[in-house]
């Protein structure tokens, strides 16, 4: 097939993007693993490779330090650790990949949560010499809390344990014990023995571990399908923006712009507008200058309704008979991300999707230790990187689902009104 013909096929296909969160501690070889993925998929360009070779040599290494391909900020290069979420891109003819590279130290729980929140799959790295450690628990806890459907446990540095099947099985058994404690039991977990440094089972099959019959890391991701990474739920349409062109051609046009979450919406669907509870029907679905019969999940469309009703930003269209909870109070698991503590009685802005309301902390129930070591009922405040059950009271009702049933409509962020920073994230019970 000519290159030109190939291009056309790729372009008519859906542009599939898979975002993968990685978590691991400093020495697990996470950056090396990502570097290896880039190298073996030929995603490193000559000038980048040249820079890596140069720096590796300067540092006196006798191998290529792939971690240099990913560690972005000067401070990180100085300390030799990753301190923020970095995004790395590569693609195969099949898919585009985005890797959210997050640090794994305890003080970076917030970064792990952030990286995982936008990912559809995750890699948990384990050093084969060390096995399951306290940090592994934390990585697993967060990926489970965020309900990532597909998780790879990559047992790395197999070259340093003589590619031992026995060691692999030992670690696998330890991890499986951890799995029994998880809340989200349907999470799919796959174990892969790898050596990022030597390139075993990352992109290419290992010749040293013929005992392993499963897929390589890349093979696994290549075969992931939409149904493997997304839960099908109920459609929710938070209105982002009202489009009123006021031109001659579109004189009376009132379009509600937003992204469809959780399911599909079609022309003719009976919808309820929240919070007014007004009923109408979907008249048209626009994407740019074309009209469609159905808007698929995660598409950014513009919807018009049969009836002239007042809809503004923050309102939500839902299917009649499929209403979310409408309430001024809720309890959620909160992951705190600010240096300023969260305390009972303090006030925040809750941003739920595109809707903002004022919220007051009613109660902090208990802190959850993210290493599966139990809960702490004595706390009265949440510090940075703490995870806890918190009840909020709002000045206006919001329209939510539980996070378990709807990742988008069940999550919110907390904004500090003084500093304007995003101080935390919550997952509604």
């Amino acid at each position, binding site marked *: 097939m000519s290159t030109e013909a190939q291009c056309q096929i790729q372009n008519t296909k859906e542009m599939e993007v898979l975002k993968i969160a990685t978590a691991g501690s400093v020495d697990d070889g996470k950056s090396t693993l990502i570097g290896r993925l880039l190298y073996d998929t030929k995603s490193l360009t000559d000038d980048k490779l040249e820079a890596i070779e140069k720096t590796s040599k300067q540092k006196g290494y006798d191998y290529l330090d792939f971690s240099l391909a990913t560690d972005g900020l000067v401070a990180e290069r100085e300390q030799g650790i990753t301190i923020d979420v970095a995004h790395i891109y590569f693609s195969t003819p099949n898919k585009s990949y985005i890797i959210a590279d997050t640090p794994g130290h305890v003080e970076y729980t917030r970064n792990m949560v952030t990286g995982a929140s936008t990912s559809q799959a995750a890699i948990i790295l384990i050093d084969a010499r060390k096995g399951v450690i306290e940090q592994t628990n934390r990585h697993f806890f967060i990926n489970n809390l965020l309900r990532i459907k597909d998780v790879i446990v990559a047992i790395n540095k197999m070259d340093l344990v003589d590619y031992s099947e026995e060691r692999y099985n030992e670690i696998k058994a330890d991890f499986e014990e951890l799995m029994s404690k998880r809340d989200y039991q349907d999470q799919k977990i796959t174990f892969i023995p790898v050596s990022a440094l030597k390139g075993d089972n990352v992109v290419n099959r290992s010749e040293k571990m013929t005992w392993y019959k499963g897929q390589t890391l890349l093979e696994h991701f290549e075969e992931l399908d939409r149904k493997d990474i997304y839960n099908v739920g109920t459609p929710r349409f938070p209105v982002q923006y009202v489009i009123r062109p*006021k031109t001659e051609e579109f004189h009376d046009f009132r379009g509600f712009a937003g992204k469809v979450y959780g399911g599909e919406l079609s022309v003719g669907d009976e919808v309820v507008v929240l919070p007014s509870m007004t009923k109408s029907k979907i008249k048209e679905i626009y994407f740019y200058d074309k009209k469609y019969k159905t808007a698929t999940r995660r598409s950014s469309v513009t919807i018009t309704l049969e009836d002239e009703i007042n809809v503004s930003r923050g309102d939500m269209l839902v299917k009649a008979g499929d209403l979310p909870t409408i309430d001024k109070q809720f309890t959620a698991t909160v992951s705190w991300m600010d240096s300023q503590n969260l305390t009972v009685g303090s006030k925040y802005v809750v941003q739920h999707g595109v809707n903002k309301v004022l919220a007051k902390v009613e109660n902090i129930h208990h802190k959850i230790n993210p290493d599966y070591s139990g809960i702490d009922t004595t706390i009265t405040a949440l510090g940075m990187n703490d995870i806890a059950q918190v009840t909020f009271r709002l000045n206006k009702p919001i329209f939510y689902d539980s996070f378990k049933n709807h990742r988008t409509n069940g999550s919110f962020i907390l904004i500090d009104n003084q500093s304007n920073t995003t101080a935390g994230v919550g997952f509604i019970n």
Partner: protein
Amino acid sequence: MVIASIGGKPIKYRIIVSIVESELETVVDVIESNELEVLNNNALENEAIYILREVAAQFEKPVLLFSGGKDSITLVRLAQKAFFPAKIPFPLMHIDTGHNFPETIAFRDKLVKELGVELIVRNVQDSIDQGKVVEETGKYSSRNMLQTTTLLDAIEEFKFDACIGGARRDEEKARAKERIFSVRDDFGQWDEKNQRPELFDMLNGQIELGQNVRVFPISNWTELDVWSYIQQEDIEIPSIYFAHKRKIFLRDGFIWSAEDDVVFRADDEKVEERMVRFRTVGDMSCTSAVLSHADTIEKVVGEIRESKISERGARIDDKRSEAAMEKRKQQGYF
């Protein structure tokens, strides 16, 4: 109940089918003939449109920074899509280094006219004339750094609270950590260690007076994604992106334009004519060309796919030091 059969299929079954079909026809009638079945779901495009709508909704005075390059042209198309059938609800602004390829300026003016949007132009030359910045001299002189002052002055002049830019995370290592909504202080500075976490789709645009937000809707696109999109959408781009004959000279393994007097050329640097194209169309003084015969979008996309030099590898300003981009960004560079 099957009472008869036609062609081996029970009639009752066929009747049901025809009812369903006629229902479908009614729907089709309602939504006219240009209606399409299901929307082709391009995740990156949907994300960018979502971000642009958040900007329009959350900010008082947004502006789209337009360089005439392919990334900002892509942004303009995405903005058209986001707000159709209304016009793009914010102006475009070009920080003109005075070192633009003439083709880019001609293209810019044509596009703005077609869109019917306001174009603001602010010139680096004015900042130089006012003595706010000093022109670099010598072999590697460039106006790229000087843009920052002009940009910050313009932000203050118009009280812009959000500046939409076409930067992508795959361009450069420091960009890989850039947020989609990136808060800058009064001095335009980026505090990379104190960035707001961005969770799920939720974008927090709350800022104080004097602060502004840089917004990057195509953060997650790669160079190839942009090119494929331009091809797929049949978007017009300036001619210098395609292979053309140009007078050039070589320096440090890079190919520089020798056509205008913008790029400093030493007497011993020989001018020759070659087939080249540009991968970015920034300031002429720091944008080098690549040898190419790709004179159509299909061929360019094919070439990018095969390409072995990353896009920023052709920009000398990043080569100055390993941390070049990060340093410039801390100072308020886009």
